[in-house]
């Protein structure tokens, strides 16, 4: 199942609802392009909703990290929402849980962004 992205705005924050697999190839490229487009439009407060992301490989993890650093370097913030246990375990194993701001509730995630 290739990755799909749904974009919406909530209180000035861009929420990307991702679904499917973020893996080497189509999935990772889709995420990369989506983040780049948002940065280019000046939308730099980004919440990635991973509730429907069924699988990440190491390339998918790499794209999450690249997304984080790209947004941060552009002066913005990127946070993660609704991690499945599988994705959570991957972030724990790779110590990326210490890098990302991970939320499990959208409302509190939205309000946590710097206004």
């Amino acid at each position, binding site marked *: 199942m290739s990755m799909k992205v749904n974009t919406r705005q909530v209180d000035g924050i861009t929420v990307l609802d991702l679904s499917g697999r973020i893996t*080497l*190839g189509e999935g990772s490229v889709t995420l990369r392009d989506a983040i780049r487009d948002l940065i280019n439009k000046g939308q730099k407060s980004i919440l990635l909703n991973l509730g429907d992301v069924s699988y990440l*490989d*190491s*390339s998918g*993890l*790499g*794209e999450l*990290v*690249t997304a*984080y*650093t790209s947004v941060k370097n552009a002066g913005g913030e990127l946070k993660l929402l609704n991690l499945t246990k*599988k994705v959570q375990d*991957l972030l724990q*194993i*790779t*110590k*990326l849980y*210490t*890098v990302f701001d991970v939320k499990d509730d959208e409302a509190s995630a939205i309000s946590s962004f710097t206004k």
Partner: protein
Amino acid sequence: MQWFLDIGRDAKHTANTNRNTPKWRRLADSITSRIEMTLDSTLESVSRVEQEAEHFAERAGFDPDEVPHIAMAVRECAINAVMHGNAYSETKKFHVSFAMEEDVMKIVVSDSGQGVDLESLPNPLAPENILRGSGRGIFLVKAFMDDVHFRKLDPGTEVTLTKRRTSEHAAH
């Protein structure tokens, strides 16, 4: 579970397939189960190998929590073979074998490319590497498998993964 020696059908199947259909045969005896695959260096082949790893681990009776880890480890090795080893070459194949010997699964992935020194990769957990956009594949393989062994071929690289089955889940 039915096992069969099917070289004849596979040979005919291979002759009529496009370049992306893997050639594989399944051999069995009462103790050892084995699958061998020879595949084109494509991402489609990587997905095919990942699925085969998942099915093999399930049939072999591994714990349901371990099966996706085994499949991911195989996927990462296949990606290395396709991308870093064979560089997506249309003329180079990569090989994967799955074998179950008593309670131990042994998986071998080999390519015929330039050769990559997979044993001296930067530690992705080190502070200076934690924000890198790549370099976590072999780390995950080592995290999920009991043993990982690299061997340089001439040409190419061979990676051998082993995992001991510890669950009581019955093979079917």
